[in-house]
C-alpha cells in the first residue's frame, strides 16, 4: 500500500480525458459519444436522469466495461494501468461472507499483516469498531455501505468513484459518508460521485457534470450549475420535470 496521500502532491490520475466514448447495448447506443475533461482535484458530481448513462460511464472509467469506441486517459495512464490507484463504491455493497474485520483484512492483506491497528482505525472512522467480529452481511444496509467505503479507502486511492452510494441511507449515515468522502478529497483523492440528491450535490460538489441521453450535456462549477444551468435539459432536471 502507498503512503498517505498528500494534498500537495499532484494527483497521478489527473487530468481525466474522455473522448468520443461510445457504447452500444441491445442495438441501442447507450453512450453516444461522451466527451469530458476533468482537470481539477476535489469532488465532481455526475447528475442526470435515470438511464442517462452515468453508471456506464463510471464503469468504463473503472475498467469494468470496455467501450466499443473512444479514448480514456487518466493522467498519463490508460484505464488498465490506473486500476491499482482506483477504488469504487457501488450502490449495492458486496461484502464477503466473513466478519466485518475480515472483510477489511481481505481487501488489504498487507495492512492486515504489518499494521492491523489501521484496520481498527478504519472501522472507527465509520463507527463500526464495536461490530468488528460480526458477520458483515448481517449489518444493515447503511452499515454495509459504511464498511464498503472504509474498505475502498484503505488503499488510499488516487481516484474514488461512488455510484449512488448513499441512496436509501438514513440522514446520519449519509452525512457520515459525505464527511469521509470530503476528508478523503481534501487529502488529495479525486472523487467522482454519481448522485440524484441535489442537496448532497450542493454540499459536496466542486463541479457538476450533467448527463442526458448518453452524453455529457453540461459541465459547470457547482454554484453556477445550480443558479444558472446552461442547458434546457439541466434546467428541467433541476426543476423535477420529466425529460423525454
Amino acid at each position, binding site marked *: 500500500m502507498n503512503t498517505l496521500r498528500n494534498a500537495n502532491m499532484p494527483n497521478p490520475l489527473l487530468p481525466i480525458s474522455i473522448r468520443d466514448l461510445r457504447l452500444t447495448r441491445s442495438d441501442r447506443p447507450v453512450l453516444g459519444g461522451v466527451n469530458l475533461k476533468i482537470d481539477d482535484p476535489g469532488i465532481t458530481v455526475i447528475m442526470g436522469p435515470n438511464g442517462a448513462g452515468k453508471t456506464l460511464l463510471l464503469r468504463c472509467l473503472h*475498467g*469494468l466495461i470496455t467501450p466499443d469506441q473512444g479514448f480514456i486517459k487518466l493522467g498519463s495512464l490508460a484505464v488498465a494501468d490506473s486500476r491499482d490507484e*482506483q477504488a469504487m463504491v457501488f450502490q449495492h455493497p458486496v461484502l464477503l*461472507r466473513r466478519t466485518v474485520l475480515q472483510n477489511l483484512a*481481505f481487501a488489504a492483506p498487507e495492512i492486515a499483516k504489518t499494521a492491523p491497528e489501521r484496520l481498527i482505525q478504519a472501522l472507527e472512522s465509520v463507527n463500526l469498531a464495536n461490530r468488528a467480529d460480526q*458477520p458483515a*452481511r448481517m449489518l444493515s444496509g447503511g452499515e454495509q455501505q459504511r464498511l464498503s467505503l472504509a474498505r475502498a479507502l484503505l488503499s488510499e486511492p488516487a481516484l474514488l468513484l461512488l455510484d449512488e452510494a448513499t441512496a436509501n441511507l438514513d440522514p446520519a449515515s449519509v452525512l457520515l459518508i459525505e464527511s469521509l468522502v470530503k476528508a478523503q478529497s481534501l487529502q488529495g483523492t479525486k472523487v467522482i460521485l454519481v448522485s440524484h440528491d441535489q442537496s448532497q450535490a450542493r454540499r459536496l460538489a466542486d463541479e457538476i457534470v450533467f448527463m442526458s441521453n448518453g452524453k455529457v450535456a453540461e459541465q459547470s462549477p457547482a454554484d453556477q450549475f445550480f443558479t444558472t444551468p446552461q442547458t434546457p435539459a439541466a434546467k428541467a432536471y433541476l426543476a423535477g420535470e420529466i425529460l423525454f
Partner: protein
Amino acid sequence: MDALSEAFRLIITLDADLFEILLLSIRVSLIALAISAIIGLPLGSWLAISKFPGRKFCILLLNALMGMPPVVVGLIVYLLLSRSGPLGWLGLLYTPSAMIIAQAVLITPIIAALSNQVIENLHQEYRDTFYSMGITGRRAVVAYLVDARYALTTCILAGFGRAIAEVGAVIIVGGNIDHLTRVMTTAIALETSKGNLTLALGLGAVLLSLSLLVNALVIGVREYAAKRQYA
C-alpha cells in the same frame, strides 16, 4: 416382526459381521469422497470463473455425467480393471480399491457440477467487486471456496449420501465378497435374495440412519449459514 427385533439386537450388540460391513462401507465411501472432493471442488470452481471456448460444453457434460446410472459406471470401471482391460495389470478388480474408484467416478461429477453452480452464483455476486479490488487467479479461487464453504459442505454431504447408498457399481467391480468387498448395500441385496431378512433389515436400518444423519447435517449447516447471512 421377529426379523425386525432380531435386527435391532444385531445393531445394539454391535454384531461383528454387521459392523465389519458397516466400517468397510464407510471407509470406501469416505475415501471415494475425499478423492472426488479434491478433484471436483477446484474443477467446479475453476469452470465457474474461467473463460474459454468449450466451457459451457464442459459444464453440460458434467451435468450429464451427474445422472450416469451407477451400473454403467460399474461396467466401465469393470472393463478398465478386468484382467484384459488397460488397467488390468493393477490387479484391483474385486478389491475395495476398485469400489473406491467406481464411487469416485460416480460422485466426482456430482460434486463438480453442484459446486460449479454454487460458485457461479457467488461469482455473479462478487465479480465486479473482486475486479475492482484487483483480486484474480488463485486468490479469487481460494476466496470463492472459502466464501462458499457452507454450500460446498452440503455438496460434499450430498456426494457422500449418494456414494454410501449406491449398489450397482460396487457390486459389479467389488463382487460382494464376504469379509473383503461386502458393503451395506450389496449385503442387503444378497441377504434379501437369500431370505435372510434379519441382517438385511439391520443393515437397512443402519443405512437409513446414516442417510438421516447426513440430511440432518445438511439442514444444520444450512441453518447455521443462513443465520449468519453466510449462505
